[in-house]
């Protein structure tokens, strides 16, 4: 049971968005810019970073929902999402994304864990300053979203089909509409 009475039937962060629409707006705006606005990193790469950080933080809802969005962007390749969560160094992804995932993992432990060598490695593999910036902020932001979802003990369904359906909607429409439709479970 959630720690506070949030509207029923809304899983994970969506219940919290309905409980407090004022904070839902900037939280969704941030997710939209970081994950769903055309950029240099593909949407799949950015969702994989979010999924990896959420898995490391053991947040079931975030790693499952963003993992499903990543898989949608990857043409349904759930196997690759699983590999990135388990052992990204041996996953079939670019060396640049591996270097960015190293940075994301360090940010998750704490900002000071990121070393100049980590950043140089990513730059050698072709990462731009903007890509490194966004990787750090995606990882930091999911350290927030994960704590928000688990810190209030929100309800998280286990049925993966629900996450797949939801993922297709978010992957196509983005994050901005989520607070408005929060009431329509």
């Amino acid at each position, binding site marked *: 049971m959630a*720690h*506070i*009475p949030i509207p029923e039937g809304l899983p994970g962060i969506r219940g*919290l968005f309905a*409980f*407090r629409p*004022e*904070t839902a*707006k*900037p*939280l969704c*705006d*941030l997710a939209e*810019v*970081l994950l769903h*606005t055309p950029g240099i990193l593909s949407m799949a790469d950015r969702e994989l970073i979010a999924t990896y950080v959420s898995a490391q*933080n*053991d*947040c079931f809802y975030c790693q499952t929902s963003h993992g499903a969005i990543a898989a949608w962007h990857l043409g349904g390749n759930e196997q690759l999402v699983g590999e990135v969560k388990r052992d990204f160094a041996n996953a079939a992804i670019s060396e640049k994304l591996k270097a960015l995932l190293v*940075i994301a993992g*360090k*940010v*998750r432990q*704490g*900002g*000071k864990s*990121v070393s*100049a060598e980590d*950043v140089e490695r990513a730059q050698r593999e072709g990462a731009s*300053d*903007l890509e*490194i*910036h*966004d990787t*750090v*902020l995606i*990882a*930091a*932001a999911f*350290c*927030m*979203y*994960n*704590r*928000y*979802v*688990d*810190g*209030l*003990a929100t309800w998280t369904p286990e049925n993966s089909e629900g996450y797949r359906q939801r993922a297709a909607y978010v992957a196509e429409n983005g994050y901005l509409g989520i607070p408005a439709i929060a009431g329509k479970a």
Partner: protein
Amino acid sequence: MPHISLPEGLPGILGPMAFRPETAKPLNELADILLRGPSTLSPSERELIATYVSARNDCFFCQTVHGAVAAHHLGGNEQLVLDVKRAPAEADVSDKLKALLAIAGKVQRGGKFVDSEDIARARDLGATDLEIHDTVLIAAAFSMYNRYVDGLATWAPEDPERYREQGARLAQQGYATVTEGATAATR
């Protein structure tokens, strides 16, 4: 030196915010709502929660600037800010705020550490559902801001007077306004 090329002369989070205004906007909106928006928690209580979490995350810039904002709201009582950072259970703050700081400290370690006893204790001392919600989200948000500031190895000035001035400005004008003013010149 910062890990990426950031506009020079801007301390802490202001460098990355000038570098990426698209993300600065929601980050500042979130801070303004959580720390300065309508709430039954006073601005000083909310800034103390932010300062405490930032201290636990060892983020010098965030704990110093938000500590300065808290002290400004507290009529310049920097000692109380230090007491809260060092040992909130023994600081001269309300029992309700102590219970909320305990929740914030759990969130800082990880969301799953918050248990129903922590929540029941806060509620017994008068905390509302919205206050508990906002405490969790402030602690979670500073677990983000701290990592953003330190993960890019941003520059932070050491002179306490600069933070006192910035703390007064932020307390009076808010996060979006001050950031916009400070970063506009770099664009």
